[in-house]
Every structure is written in C-alpha cells, then in structure tokens.
C-alpha cells in the first residue's frame, strides 16, 4: 500500500516537474522526459511486472494530462513496453557501474520517443525527420537528468520493497 502511494507520488511529481519547472527547458527543441527515467528505475528495481504496470499508469496519466485528440494511450503503450523490456533485461545487467544505468536510461529515452513517433506516424501526426532527431536530443537531455532522478526513484523502490528480497545495488 505504502509502495503504491510512493510510486503514485513519483508519477505526480514527475508530471508536475515536466509541465512547470522543466517546461521551458529544451535541448535544441526537444523536451526531457522525467517519467521514462522513473519507469527505467522502477523496472530495474522491481522487475518486469511492476515496471510494465508502473509504465502503463504513468503513461496513461501523462496522456490524459498532455494529450490532444487521437493520441491518448500512446505513452501508456510505449512506457508499458519499456517498463517490461527493462525489467526483463535487468537479469543480464551484472555490472553495478553507473555508466550501465546511464546508458540504459538513455537508450530507453531514445526508444520511447522513437516508438511514440512510430505510433503517431500512423495517425499522421509526426514526421520521420522530427522523430529521429527528437529521439536523439531527448535521450541527451535525459542523460543530464538521470543522475538526479534515477538514484532517487531506485532508493524509493528499494525502501518500500514489500518482502525481504535481494536488494540490488542502486
């Protein structure tokens, strides 16, 4: 229960950050995405089931808050896939080096924009050039934010772990 509340608060805080404090901050036109970093952190800390569920909830709320017509559900789809993929990959991540986690967060950010772009392309709401460029820029912007967001969420996930499980190195 406490874990649910904490993860819910992470989503709300992430959305507030994105829409107010970070709203004016762009890297050559691309916006950073705090939520996808949080999804990666939860998936790395708690595995594919929680990663996918957290991703779905975060994406759906973000879609409801920011979405225009014909795009609600896209982030939910993308974050679910990313949460699951990262959670499934974590068994292969044996190194506790910071760069591994940084690279993972950046790769997930890139995948998130490219996947969303791909889905929105179906509705003719984005262009290939924009998606390709924005994916790279958003990943770069997220690299800067990851050291701030990622350890915090990892720690919250570890601290609210329901049963005595193997606590991985944050």
């Amino acid at each position, binding site marked *: 229960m406490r874990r649910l509340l904490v993860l819910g608060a992470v989503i709300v805080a992430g959305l*507030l950050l994105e829409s107010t404090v970070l709203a004016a901050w762009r890297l050559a036109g691309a916006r950073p995405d705090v939520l996808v970093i949080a999804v990666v952190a939860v998936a790395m800390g708690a595995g594919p089931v929680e990663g996918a569920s957290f991703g*779905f909830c975060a994406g759906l709320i973000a879609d409801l808050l920011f979405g225009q017509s014909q*795009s609600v559900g*896209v982030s*939910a789809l993308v974050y*679910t896939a990313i949460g699951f993929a990262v959670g499934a990959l974590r068994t292969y991540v044996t190194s506790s080096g910071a760069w591994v986690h940084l690279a993972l967060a950046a790769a997930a950010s890139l995948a998130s*924009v490219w996947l969303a772009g791909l889905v929105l392309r179906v509705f003719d709401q984005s262009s290939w050039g924009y998606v390709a*460029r*924005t994916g790279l820029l958003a990943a770069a912007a997220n690299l800067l934010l990851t050291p701030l967001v990622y350890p915090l969420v990892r720690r919250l996930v570890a601290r609210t772990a329901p049963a005595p499980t193997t606590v991985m190195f944050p």
Partner: protein
Amino acid sequence: MYARPRRARMLLVLLLLASITVITIDFREGQSGPVAQLQRVSVAAFGPLQRGVSAVVRPVGAFFSGIGQIGRLRADNRRLTAEVEQLQSEERTYQDAIGENQRLRGTLGMAARCGCKTVGALVVARSGSNFQWSVTIDAGSSRGIASGMPVLDADGLVGRVSQVTAGYATVTLLDDPASGVAASLARTKGPGIVKGAAEAGLQFEPVQAGTDVRPGDEVVTRGYQGGVFPAGLPIGMVARVDPAGAASLVPTVTLRPYANLGTIDVVAVVVSQPKAPSRPRSGQRPQPQAGPAMAATSASGGGR
C-alpha cells in the same frame, strides 16, 4: 520477480491491449467520449497543483543560473549576498509584474481591436510531451470558456481551446499537428488553412491553386458563418514559399507566427464575437499592421 515469466507476459499483453483500446476509443469518440471526460478530470486535478508550482517557479526563473555564483562566495560576505539576492529577487518579481502588465495591456488591445468579448487568463503549465504542443490556462467553463474558442496574446492568435473544466482549460497551440485554422491572406484575401507542422512551425495551405502568395504577406483568421473565429485576427507572416511541384498542386507556404508560441504566459480567450459578424463598425478594417499589436511586440520584447 522473474520467477514467473508467464504471469509477467500475460500482464504485458493485457496492458498493451488496454493501451490500444484506449487509443482506439479516443480515436473514435473524440471530444464526447469517455477518454475526453477522463482528460478533463485529470486537467482539473492537476490544474491547482501546476498553478501552485508555477507561481513559485515563475518569478525566480534565473534561479539555476544563480547557483553557480553562490558556490563561489565566501562566508564573510554571506550577509551581503543574501541582501543582494533578496533585492535581485524583488527586482525579478517587479520586472515580471511589469512585463505581465505590458502583455496584459497588449492582449486587451488585441481583443479590443476585434471588438470581441474576451476572458483573460494566465498559462499555468505547458505540455511535457515531445509530440503535443499545448498549454493549460487558469480559466475554464465557470468564466464562459468553451471548447473551440480562439485564444490570443498581445501579438496575435496562439491557438484554440481543446479541453475545458470548471476552473482550467487546455489550449492546443497553432503549431500542434492537430491544429487547423481557417485563414486568409490580408493582401489578396485568398482563403486557406493554417496548419501546425510541429518542428516546421506553421504552414498556410491555400484553398485554390494559383493563389498569389509572397514572402512578407500577412495571414489573418477568416470568419465564417457559424464559426467561432472572428475575422481579421493576425496569425503570422509568410516566411517562405516553395512553389507547387509534382507532389502538390498548391505551393508550400511556411508562416512565422506573430505570437512566440514557446513563451506565452498571458492570454485572452475570445468568448463571443461582436454583434455585426466579422465587420467592426468604424473604418477599422481587419488590418494586422495596425498599432497595438506591433507596439506590444516591441514593448514586451524590450521588457524581457
């Protein structure tokens, strides 16, 4: 944990199906469906929070650049620094208020020019997504705002209302790919549609092939019967014209919007049009070059 991969895979499939269902429902039902209703609920829930955070963050926009300086300061001038900082922050608040005042005046001037009844509002949040271009404003249906109404700032049209709750509304900006506004060229009255093109800004699509359009032409809104848009609101200036080719019959016209869509903070929502549709009484024809808009542009540009 990964001990139960089947359960995990089942959940993944379930959540992906749920996402696709939401996308489908939203796509089919549009503004009236359950998804749009949920959107209104979330905008209403987050509105007050965003407003609170914005109110704290707005006057201290330069906070992050200040951190570096503070780090270098010695302990013995801490008191002085604090004093200076306080003065600076007051100055920023003051500048912010002056700028806001100027923009409000400009916005009022713009509204007065079209003779419409407007409701003023502040931008409390912007979209955090790379694929949506929208803002949340702190006025909603309780002040007469409804979906589809045009939104102006001191420089021109910025977009239209897309979601409304009692106290807040979401505005889809002109550069959102989902945005489309009926428009015409001020010089030749050639009709067309202004569409959002995300990274490329705005595009004017002439209705008729062979429409005479040149760089520097003004593009204004086109009023039509039954429409919510008054005629003659300035949208932008033609920046580039790529002639019609094999791919399309009409030229590709790129617009530079008058309003700076990335930094808007004070807006006016047009809630009703003048009685005599689309033609103000006086000799003041829809002429975008007229005084207030341009004056406000230079004033707010200088104030920042």
